[in-house]
Each structure stands twice: as C-alpha cells, then as structure tokens.
C-alpha cells in the first residue's frame, strides 16, 4: 500500500479528492483568515480541472464497477468545474467580507464534488448517493442569503420539491432493482426487459425524479422561484451546472443502462420536450423579472437538449445517435457559458444596485434601462449571451441548435425540428426586448463602475460563448468522440 499503488489505482479520483480536501481546508482556514477563501476555492477548482483534462481520455472502473471514468464522465466534470470556477470568481466580490464565506465555498465545492460523482456513477446506488450530495449542498446555497426572505423561500421550495423528487427517483430505482436483481448499469444494459406494470411504473418514476432536476415541464415549478430568489451567483451555478447533473444522470440511466427500454419512451420524451420548450418560451415572454425570464428560458433550453433523448429513443442508427448525443453534449457545454454568463451579468447589475444603495427589485427589467451607457461591458456581454440563447450565428447557441436540430431531422423527426425552430424564433422576441431596453432606453440609475470580479467572470463566459461559436470545429469533434460512449 504505497503511494504509487494508490495513485495508479485510484489516481482517477484525484480531481474529486483535491476538491474535497480544499473544501475541508476552507472550512478550517475560514475560522481565522476569511479574505483568502475565495482564492483558495478557485485554486482548488483550477487544479481539479487540470487533473480532469489531463485524464480526459481515461477508461477505468473503480470500487466494484460502481464508478466509471470515461470521456463522458470527464466531459461533464469539465462543464461542472468551469461553471463552479465562474461562480467562484463572481462570488469573490459578492461574498467579500461575508462572515460565512467559509461555509459558502465549502458548500460550493462539495456540490461540485457531488455532481462530479454523478458523472462517474455506474450503479443505481452510487448515482443516488452522489445525486443527493450534489443536491443537498445546493439547497443550502439557494438559501444562503438568510436575511433575504426570497432566498429563504427559494431554498425551502427547492428543498421540499427536491426531497420529494429524490424519494420518487429512489422508488423508481428500487423497482428496477426488484425487476432485475441488479443495480449495476453495465449489467442493466445487457438485460432484456419485458414490458409490465412494474417496468412502466419504474420508468415513470425515474422520469419524474430526474425531470425535476432537469426542470422539464411539468416538473419545473420550483425553478423560476428558486432561480429568482437564490443569490444570483448561486442561480448561475444552479442553471448552468446543477441542472446538467440531471442531464448526465438521465443520459446514464436512460440511454446507457435502460437501453432495452428506451424505445418505449420515445413518445413520452417527445411530448415532454415539446411542452417544455413551448411552455418555457411562452411564459418567458411576459416576465418582468430578468432572473425569472432566464429561468423560463432555461426551461425552454432544457426542452431543446431533451430533443436528444427523443431522437435516440426513436432511432437506433449509430450515426444519428452519435450526432444527437454529441449535439446534446455540445449544447450542455455551450449552455453552461451562455446561461451562466447571463445570470452573472444580471448579478452584476444586482450587485451594482446594492453597492450604490439603490433600493429596487434587483432584477426588474427597468433596472437595465440604458445599461449600455452605465455599464457597457456588462450590457454588451449580456447582449451576446441573450443572442446566443436565441441561437444567433457566431455564438455557441447557434452551433448547438444547428447540431441538435439537424440530428432531429437526420433521425426522421422533422416535425420536432420544426416545432423547435418555431420556438427558437419565438424566443428571440423576449431576448431582443432586453437588448432593446439596455441599448435604446435612457439610463434610469447612475451606476458607478462595474465590479472587476464580476466583469472577469462575465468576460470569461463571453469568451467561451464566442469561441464555441466562431471556432466550434475541435469542440464538436470532442463532443462527438465523447458521444461514442452511447453507441
């Protein structure tokens, strides 16, 4: 049991180990030195990200095949860590001087560790435990501004519905175990199921349980309230990172483990995807709170990503599955930048209002009037993020939609692509409205300068959004390569 033996066998766990170590170190150091905690968390995130990228094309299983380390898990870990890093950078300013910083960064890192384990789970039990670890930490984070009743409400609602859906998910998983006698994904994927009342119940329960995390309609009710009430930096993390935990779990369970059943789910997913994108876009049209609007837009985006599940359950042609899943993965990466960036940009404005002691609802659309004059970098970046979410060319959003919509057409689901494209056109309306307010209305408040930490985070997200839009080739290739796991 020397160190080399550990490294050669458990070395793939290093990113998670590093992050956990940093999390506990932060709690301890936070007792005495508060000002360095954010930077410490950042360093932890960067080291962990470096380790994941170094080990990107690994292929290993650990702990009796309950954890798997493959390009798919590494891809999602990269997404989670990128979002966490962006959140940490912005939090450097938002939680500067806060007495409970230690707990905040601890929870942030632990949530990330949980999400990373979800990405690596290869067993119903390890999936559920990791899922809970990733969720419970975010419940607390959502309620972290404990003087703000909205934040409390956000956390409470998120927790109640989250706990319920975990129970539902667990019930679905136990039914699967009851039917098959195994909890391992590899074993499950080789089973042949018979359609019965039990399998049907299991399917419904699992879809409901995971649909909550992905915020698919009709399991989305918590999302607008939570995203609006939670501290904006946390909303960014929830929408851009934590939501993807639901997607990776769904991909693993539905596309990989229950491969024998997925044909039965095609219509269910089709209905959910269509309702999710349409409902999200329609409700977003009328929102005055920008965080709510982004929440509904996030629901709509989940609908687009869920199209990949529809396509892979409809057709089993390898090239179609590869394109659909590759598209979904690329979309998830892009969405992390676009949505994370949009929330952080909204957070920047909220922070400036707070700092300049202007007492208004932090995210009302009126606050954004004439933002191009008072906060030009934030206004420009938010414009790019919103256009990216609408799928305008030369942004990550365009390439994502290009891939996923073309996968739908390739798979013979042209009607689904038509609905998605109409939705995409509809969404332009509410995104363009915000741009209009920022660029050609008169400034309402006199804001004094943009906070550096926020600007750095927003610009990094902007860089990601534009890079993936202008030079997508290598990233698409990586996503397609990773998606070969699903074949």
């Amino acid at each position, binding site marked *: 049991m020397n160190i080399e033996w550990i490294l050669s066998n458990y070395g793939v766990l290093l990113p998670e180990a590093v992050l956990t170590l940093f999390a506990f170190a932060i709690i301890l150091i936070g007792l005495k030195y508060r000002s360095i905690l954010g930077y410490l968390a950042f360093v932890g995130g960067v080291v962990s990200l470096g380790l994941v990228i170094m080990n990107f094309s690994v292929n290993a299983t650990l702990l009796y095949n309950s954890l798997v380390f493959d390009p798919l898990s590494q891809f999602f870990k990269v997404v989670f860590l990128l979002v966490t890093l962006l959140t940490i950078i912005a939090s450097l300013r938002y939680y500067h001087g806060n007495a409970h910083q230690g707990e905040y960064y601890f929870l942030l890192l632990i949530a990330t560790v949980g999400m990373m384990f979800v990405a690596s789970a290869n067993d119903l039990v390890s999936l559920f435990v990791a899922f809970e670890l990733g969720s419970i930490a975010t419940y607390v984070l959502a309620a972290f501004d404990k003087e703000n009743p909205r934040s409390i409400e956000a956390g409470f609602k998120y927790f109640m519905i989250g706990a319920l859906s975990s129970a539902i998910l667990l019930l679905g998983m136990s039914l699967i175990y009851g039917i098959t006698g195994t909890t391992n994904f590899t074993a499950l994927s080789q089973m042949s199921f018979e359609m019965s009342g039990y399998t049907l119940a299991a399917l419904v329960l699992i879809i409901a349980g995971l649909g909550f995390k992905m915020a698919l309609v009709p399991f989305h009710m918590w999302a607008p309230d939570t995203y609006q009430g939670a501290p904006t930096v946390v909303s960014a993390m929830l929408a851009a990172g934590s939501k993807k935990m639901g997607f990776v779990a769904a991909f693993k369970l539905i596309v990989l483990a229950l491969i024998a059943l997925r044909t039965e789910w095609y219509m269910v997913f089709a209905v959910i995807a269509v309702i999710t994108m349409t409902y999200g876009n329609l409700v977003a049209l009328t929102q005055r709170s920008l965080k709510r609007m982004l929440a509904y837009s996030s629901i709509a985006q989940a609908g687009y990503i869920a199209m990949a599940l529809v396509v892979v359950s409809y057709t089993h042609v390898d090239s179609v599955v590869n*394109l659909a899943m*590759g598209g979904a993965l690329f979309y998830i990466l892009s969405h992390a930048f676009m949505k994370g960036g949009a929330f952080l940009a909204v957070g920047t404005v909220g922070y400036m209002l707070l700092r300049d002691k202007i007492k208004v609802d932090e995210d009302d659309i009126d606050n954004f009037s004439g933002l191009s004059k008072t906060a030009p970098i934030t206004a420009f970046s938010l414009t790019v993020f919103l*256009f990216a979410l609408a799928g*305008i*060319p*030369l942004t990550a959003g*365009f*390439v994502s939609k*290009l*891939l996923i*919509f*073309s996968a739908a*057409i*390739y798979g013979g689901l*042209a009607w689904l*692509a*038509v609905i998605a*494209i*109409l939705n*995409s*056109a509809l969404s*332009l*309306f509410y995104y*363009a*409205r915000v*741009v*209009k307010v920022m*660029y*050609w209305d008169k400034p309402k408040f006199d804001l004094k300068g943009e906070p550096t930490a926020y600007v750095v985070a927003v610009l990094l997200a902007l860089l990601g959004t534009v890079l993936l839009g202008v030079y*997508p*080739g290598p990233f*698409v*290739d990586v996503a*397609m390569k990773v998606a070969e796991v699903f074949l």
Partner: protein
Amino acid sequence: MMFTISAMILIPFIGALLASIFRGGAKAIALVFSLVPLVISLVMYQQIHDPSTLSYVEHYGWISALGISLKFGIDGLSLPLLILTGIVFPLTIIYSWRLPYTPQVFYPLMLVLESALIGVFTALDFIIFYIFWELTLIPLYFVIGMFGGPKREHAAIKFFIYTHVGSLVMLLGVFALYFESGIGSFDLLSLIGAFATLPTDLRNIIFAAILFGFIVKLPSVPLHGWLPDAYCEAPTPGTVVIASLLSKMGAYGILRISLPMLPAVPSLTLFVKIIAILGVVSILYGAFLALAQTDLKRMIAFSSVSHMGYVLIGVASFSALSLSGAMFQMFSHGLIIALLFMLVGVIQSNTGTRMIPELSGITNKMPIVAFLVMGGFLASLGLPGMSGFVAEFLTLMGAYPSLPVYVLLALVGVLITASYYIWAMQRALFGPYNENLGEVKDVGAIQMLPMAILLGLIILFGLHPAPILKLFEAVAVFVEVLI
C-alpha cells in the same frame, strides 16, 4: 491571392473594432476601412479571367463532423454586388458625416454590416452563407432601434423577427436537402447538384422552403409586411443600406441557389408560374401602393418592392437575356434607390417634412436637391440613358418570348411607375412655394458629394452598361445552358 476574400470580410470588421475604441476618429476609420473592399473588388474585377466560373476560392475547415467548411469564392454574379457594396458603404458613411449619430456606435455597426454582406455574397457553404445572412440582422436591429424614427422599436423587432422566421424556414429546407441527399457536406454547389437525386415530392417542399426565405428578404408581395415599417422608421443611412443592399441578398439567393435548382423541381411549370406571378404582382401592386402614398419615403419604399419584382420575372423567363437584365437590375436598383433615400433624408432634415402635400415648389429654394430628385426619379422610372432603363428593358424583352402576358402586365407597371414619380415631382418640386416651410437651405457639400457620385454612376452605367453587364451575361449564359 490566397486570403483576398477573407481580407475583404475581416478588414471592415477590424475597422469596426477600431472605430468603437477610437471615438474621435470613428468616422475617418469607418470611411477608410469601408473603402478597402471596394479597392479589393476593383482589383478582382481587373484580374478576373472567366466570370462564369468561381475564382479566388478559399477553403478552410470549420465543423468537420457535419461537413461544414469556410468556403468562399466569387464569380460574375457576386463580383458586381461586391462592387455595389463597396460603393454604397463609403458613400453612406460620407453622407452620414454631419448627422448626429453617436460615432463610436453607429459606424462600427455599419462596418459590421458591410462585413456580413460581403460574407453573404461570397460564401460557398450553405451554413456559412446562412451565418452571414443572419448576421446582417443584428447591426440593422441596432441601427433601426437606436437611431430610427418615432416607431423604431416596433419596426426594429418586426423586421428582426419577420426575416428571422423566413431564414429559419430556409434553413429547414437545407437541412432536409443535406440529410436526404446524404452527401455529408454543406458545400453550396454540391448540395445544389445533389438536389436532383432526391425523391420528387420532397424536392418540391425543399425548393419552396428555400425560396420562401429569399422572397421574404427580397421582398415580394405578399411577404413584404416588414418593409414599409423598416424602411420608413430606419434612419436614412440604414434605409439606404437595407434598400440598396439587403434586398439584393434575397435576389442573390434566388439567383445563386434557387435558380440552379429550378430545372430539377418536379412541378417546374407550377413554380415558374408562381415566381412569374409573384414578380408581376410585386411590380403592379408595389406601383399602385406607391401611387397612393403621400409620404415620400413610403412611396420610394413601395417603388422598391415594384422594382425588385423584375428579378423574379428574369428568373421565370429562362432566357439569358432577361436573366442578365434582372441581374443588372440588382446593380442598377442598388445605386438608384440609394440616391433616392439619401435625397428623402436631406429633404426631411432641411424642410422638416417628407409629406408630398406639404412640400411644394421646393425647387426655388433647393435647386440642387430638386435637380438630383429629378435625376433619381427619372432613373427609377426607366428613362433611356440611365441604368434603370437598360435593366428593365433587357428583362422584359428577354422574357417576352416565354412570358408574353406577364411582360405586358409588367409594362402597365412601368406606366404606373412613371405616373407616381412624375406626379410626385410635380407636387413636391414645382408649383408655388409653400411658405409654411419657412427659410429652407439647399443641401450641403458633404451630403451632395455621395449623391452626385451616385447620379453620375447611374448615368455612366446607363450609357455604357457593358463593364458590369458583361459579367452578368457570362453567368446568365452559363445558367441558361444549365437549364
């Protein structure tokens, strides 16, 4: 030679970045950088050997998984449009020199627009074409929304969403073409070539979807709903660019993509009939709408619908003569409409109104403007000796053998066009001076310069169309052989 087209696309974009950084020099930077594409396109004009085939082709990878690559090239169809783009942008920038637009915002937007337009006219990969096509909307959305007239918010969003939906329909058609043909590449020419191999009923749908996107942009009746608002609410430079260049994107798309597909369309006769009817209805309906307007800007906006109808006639004619006339109409209309909208801008800013009944006898006070208006109107109604005549005459003459009825109807349109222009001229320019207008100044030298250049070019190409026409003819003959 390697990076000629990339340079053409990138240089205005770099100019936009510089102009947004150096506020003081924004105008000068914009002028210099907008001139570069003109210089490059003139050099290309000098060196191009065979305008019927592609030259200056550039090819780089982009998304290999889907077979999308950055492919650019020019031929006799795109080169004149590049020259037109190169002419109109610097002139518009000179025209805007003294206008009160925030320089570090307005000029970068114009330069980005120029980049995007050059991209549209040179792209040889469908997705890249689509990207530039959509990219033109963003700067215009801001130009209309930030610097436009009283109803600009409504106009900007309507323009944006209307044409965006049109483009999305087109994109769907191309997706279907790409996946059904299974060629694994979005290369424009390969896709068009693969079109004939598809199942028959699918070919009709795909052709219709792609045509739809182009017709919205052209625009043709009945899809012209975005046009009056966008044209009238946009600030003058914006209107000039939309009318002169953006509408050519639709025409260019039809000629570059739809026309070569047309022979393989199963319901060929039906589609030809539809295109011809759309053309004639646009010519007539646009002209009648123009006749009814009291707002000078609206009148010219509708005249634009009418004139773009000729392009559709040329497409439906299946004759090289008519086709080259229709192509020349794109070039000629681009110059004429730019002049007309610039003039309306001057009249409005100097007299305070652009309503025809309120403008009376302004010849006395603004002789230069009146002279230019007369020149522009006569050019637009097709007076021999000016470029509009060459274009419309060729289009109609070439189309007569195959579409006699439509040509006769279009001739009625010519008549109405003449009436609304002459009638407007009579009411607005001549007669007793409307004293309510007060003391009115004539146009200043800076704004006169671009307009005089445009009128000069209109007359030059009216008397001697060959330099541009020969490029179009080379392409048109080639297309006719194809058909």
